[in-house]
């Protein structure tokens, strides 16, 4: 029974992965990849790892794939254009490497000593949490720093430079903002330097009166 389930989900995963690679439309590839993720989550449940299965569905099939589909639709790519393949010498090399990999898989299937899976409770949320917050606390904290760096990096990359609206506030710090932020009538990119902490103070130092009324309206 378990073997039948394994074969079902493994076939689903491999089929969806092949469909993903064969597909030319990136959106269909993304949907196939969601199929791979869900069938892998089913395999995790079979391996007595329900927490990892839940995280797999939530993080991969939920968050990451939503992000990917969002970018696909944002950039509006319909399909890849067909082009004659370059680097034709890679095709026989790919065949040879695939043969090597099939040999490796056969080696694994033949030589790895099979033993019955013991009834395992290491995948429960309780055991994962206790290990994560005692023995593996340092990797956990490093991971949180990594996430912070990724967040800042993604915002920096995706931001358009120099596109500040007229009602943006002057941020304390060392950046130089165009004068048109405090004075809507100023020429764009007039970079007279003043050091202030607030927009109102900048307006006062630059002798601009129009903004104070505007900020009161806000």
């Amino acid at each position, binding site marked *: 029974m378990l073997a039948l389930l394994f074969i079902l989900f493994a076939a689903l995963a491999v089929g969806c992965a092949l469909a993903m690679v064969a597909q030319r439309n990136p959106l269909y*590839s993304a949907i196939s990849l969601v199929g791979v993720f869900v069938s892998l989550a089913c395999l995790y449940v079979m391996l007595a*790892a329900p*927490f*990892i299965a839940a995280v797999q569905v939530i993080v991969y099939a939920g968050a990451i794939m939503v992000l990917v589909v969002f970018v696909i639709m944002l950039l509006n790519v319909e399909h890849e254009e067909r082009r004659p393949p370059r680097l034709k010498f890679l095709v026989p090399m790919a065949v040879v490497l695939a043969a090597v990999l099939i040999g490796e898989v056969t080696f694994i299937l033949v030589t790895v000593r099979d*033993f019955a899976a013991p009834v395992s409770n290491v995948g429960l949320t309780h055991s994962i949490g206790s290990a994560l917050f005692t023995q*593996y606390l340092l990797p956990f904290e490093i991971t949180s720093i990594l996430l912070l*760096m990724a967040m800042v990096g993604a915002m920096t990359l995706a931001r358009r430079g120099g596109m500040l609206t007229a009602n943006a506030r002057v941020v304390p710090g060392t950046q130089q903002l165009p004068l048109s932020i405090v004075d809507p009538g100023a020429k764009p990119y007039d970079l007279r330097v003043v050091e202030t902490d607030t927009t109102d103070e900048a307006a006062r130092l630059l002798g601009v009166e129009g903004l104070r009324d505007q900020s009161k309206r806000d």
Partner: protein
Amino acid sequence: MAPQLSWYLALSAVLFTIGVTGVIIKRNIIAMFMCIELMLNAVNLTFVAFASFFQDVTGQLFVFIVMTVAAAEAAVGLGIIIAIFRNRETLDVDDASILKL
């Protein structure tokens, strides 16, 4: 007959190979990105299989951290993809072969 450890390892190897093939043959940068995600998942399957068969929670914690890294990679990678598209109006990696904008 219950599924054996070697079955999971073989499945993981097959999935990883499909991912490598996709990275090599795809030209669309988003498709390559998704193939990398597939490779990460294949490795995760190996980790979970070993953790379950050896009764050790360490493998599952590895999977947890790999997923976090994958999420960070998705955020930064998609930001890079958007920046490339904004500069070059294309998603073809052959057109983005030099770093100069």
